[in-house]
C-alpha cells in the first residue's frame, strides 16, 4: 500500500500549497493595513493603526459606504423576494415556456458582467432614465436574482409538497399557508439568499461603475483611490475591515444553516447548503 500512501502524501502537499495560493492575497491585506510605511512592499517597516484612523475622517468614504449599504440592502431584498416567488413557482407548478423563462432569468449567471452592464446602460439610455443609485440597484437585482433562485430553489426542492397541502387541508388559506408553513420552512434559504446577494452586491464593481451617477458605491470609490499611491495603505485597512465583516457574516450564515438543519432532523454535516 506504499503506492497509495505516496499518492496521499503528494495530494496532501498539493492541497496545502493550493490553499497557500488561495489565501496569499487575503493574508497580505491585514499585514499591510498595520504596516507603517506608505509603500506596499516588503520589508515591513513597523506597526501602526494610523490607516484605520484615516478611514474615520474620510467623508467621501463614508458616503460611499452608505451608498453601498443602501444598494446592497435593496438589491438583496428585492432579488430575494423575486427569487422566492420564482423558486416557489418553479418548484410547484409547471407552466408554459417554463424552461425558456427560467433560462432568461438565469442568463446573467453565465454572461460576463461587462455585457450586462453595457446592455443595461443601453436600455437605460433608451428609456431616457438618468443614472443613479437606483439604476445600480436594478443592475444588481438582475445579477443577484439568479443566485437567489438557485439558493431558494434548493430550499423549495427540499420541502415536502404535502406540507403545504396539509396546511391547506386543515382549513388554512393559500396566503396563510405560505406565512405559517412555507416561509418558516424555507427561512434558512431566505437568509442565505439575503446574505449571498448582499455580499455580491456589496462587492460588485463593473455594473456599479457603468450605471452609477454621481453617487459612487464602495468598490467604485476604492477603484478611484487606487490611482493615488498615498491612499493605498488606508485602502488596505478598509479591506481588512471588510474582510473581517464578511468572514463573520459567513460564519454566522453557516452556523444558522446548521442549526436549522439540526432542528429539522437533518444531518448538519452535509455539504448540501454549500454547493
Amino acid at each position: 500500500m506504499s503506492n497509495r500512501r505516496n499518492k496521499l502524501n503528494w495530494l496532501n502537499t498539493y492541497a496545502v500549497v493550493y490553499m497557500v495560493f488561495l489565501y496569499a492575497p487575503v493574508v497580505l491585506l491585514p499585514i499591510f493595513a498595520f504596516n507603517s510605511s506608505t509603500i506596499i512592499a516588503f520589508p515591513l517597516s513597523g506597526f501602526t493603526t494610523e490607516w484605520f484612523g484615516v478611514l474615520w475622517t474620510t467623508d467621501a468614504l463614508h458616503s460611499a459606504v452608505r451608498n453601498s449599504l443602501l444598494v446592497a440592502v435593496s438589491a438583496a431584498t428585492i432579488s430575494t423576494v423575486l427569487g422566492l416567488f420564482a423558486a416557489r413557482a418553479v418548484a410547484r407548478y409547471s407552466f408554459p415556456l417554463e424552461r425558456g423563462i427560467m433560462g432568461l432569468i438565469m442568463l446573467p449567471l453565465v454572461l460576463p458582467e461587462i455585457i450586462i452592464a453595457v446592455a443595461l446602460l443601453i436600455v437605460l439610455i433608451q428609456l431616457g432614465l438618468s443614472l443613479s443609485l437606483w439604476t445600480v440597484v436594478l443592475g444588481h437585482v438582475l445579477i443577484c436574482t439568479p443566485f437567489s433562485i438557485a439558493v431558494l430553489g434548493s430550499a423549495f426542492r427540499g420541502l415536502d409538497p404535502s406540507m403545504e397541502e396539509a396546511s391547506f387541508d386543515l382549513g388554512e388559506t393559500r396566503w396563510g399557508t405560505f406565512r405559517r408553513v412555507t416561509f418558516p420552512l424555507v427561512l434558512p434559504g431566505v437568509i442565505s439568499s439575503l446574505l449571498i446577494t448582499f455580499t455580491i452586491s456589496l462587492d460588485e464593481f463593473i455594473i456599479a461603475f457603468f450605471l452609477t451617477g454621481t453617487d459612487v458605491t464602495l468598490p467604485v470609490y476604492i477603484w478611484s483611490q487606487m490611482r493615488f499611491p498615498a491612499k493605498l495603505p488606508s485602502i488596505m485597512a478598509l479591506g481588512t475591515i471588510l474582510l473581517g465583516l464578511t468572514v463573520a457574516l459567513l460564519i454566522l450564515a453557516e452556523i444558522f444553516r446548521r442549526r436549522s438543519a439540526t432542528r429539522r432532523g437533518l444531518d448538519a454535516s452535509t455539504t448540501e447548503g454549500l454547493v
Partner: protein
Amino acid sequence: MRDTENPQARTIIALNAVTKSFGAVQALKGITANIREGEFFSLLGPSGCGKTTLLRMIAGFDEPTTGTIAIDGKPMAGIAANHRPTNMVFQSYAIFPHLSVADNVGYGLKKRRLPKAEYRREVEQALEMVDLGGYGPRAAHTLSGGQRQRVALARALIMKPKVVLLDEPLSALDKKLRDQMQLELRQLQRSVGITFILVTHDQEEALIMSDRIAVMFDGQIEQLATPEDLYRRPVNQRVASFIGVMNFLGAQVSGSDENQVSLDVQALGRIDIPRAGLPEGMKPEDIHRVGVRPEMMTILIDSATTAERIIEGEVVETSYYGDMTYYAVRLIGLEEPVTISMRNTAGRAVLRPGEIARVGFATDSIILFR
C-alpha cells in the same frame, strides 16, 4: 358488521362517474360509488391504479376531469380543500417540523379563534385520544414514526371532519408496529364514529380494518364489497388472485338442467353446482374456470379420515410457517402444482416433498369464474 346490519345507512360521499386524466394518461376511468356515513372504507389496489388520485380529489387537491363528487349531499365542484369537511393523513405524515406537537395538532383550530383555555383543552383531548397525552410541548422532529402517525391523526380528528382520508398511513412503519396500529386505528374509528377512507395496497390490512373495500385496477373499481364477500365471492380472477391466494383450474360445462349445472373440472373431475349457487348474471356457458382457496383443500394424513371428494397428488414443496404449512401439490392430471394450506395442530405430521398426498375438498367451496 354494521354495514350488513344497516346497508341503508346515509351516503356521506357520492362518487358519480368520476374520471381523471393527466395529459394522455387516464388515471381514473369512471368511478361510481357511495361511501356510507360512519363506515371504515378502503381503496385497495396495486401501485398506480389511481387510489391516491381518487383520494386527492375527494380532499379537494385536484378536480375531476369529468363526473361529480358530493360530500354530505353537497356537490364539491369548485370547493377547495380548505373549505371541505374532510381531513387527510398523509403518507409522509407531513408533520410541520418547525412546530411543537401541540401546535401541529392545534394548527387547524387556530383559524377558529377559540378562547385559549378551550383551545388547550381540545388539543390535550385530541392528544389523549391517540395516546400521546403530555407530548404537547415536544418538538415534532423528535417523534418516532408511530408517534408521528398519531400526531397526524390527532391533527385531522381535532377538526371534527365528516370524513378522514388516509393515504397508506401505515406503510412507513415496521411490521410489528403496523399490526398494532391497524387495530388501534380500527378501534379509534369505531369510537369516534367518523367515516374513514383508507388507501392501501396491502390486502391483509384492508381485510382486517375495513367495513367495505373497493378493489381497484387500472383506474376502475372491479368490486366493492365487504371483506368476507370479497374473499368468498370475488367477481373475477383478477380480484380473486389479488385478495389472498387462489388455485385456478380449467372447467367445462358438461351438462345442465333447471336445478344444477355439471362441470368437468381439471384434476377434480365432475362437480355439480346448484343453479342457485351461480353468481348473479352468470350463465352456465360463461363458466370456464373454477377457483379453490388453499384452506378449502385438506391433506388427509390419517388414512381413516375422509372428505366429500378425495384426489391424489405428489408433494412438490413444503413451506413451514410455524402455525401453518403451505404445500405445493401436483395433482394427477394437472401440470401446475396447487397450493394447499394446513393448520399445524398438535400431532399432525408434516409431509415431505416426494410423498403422495390424499387431498380432500368439498364441492361447495368451489368458486366459479368466466
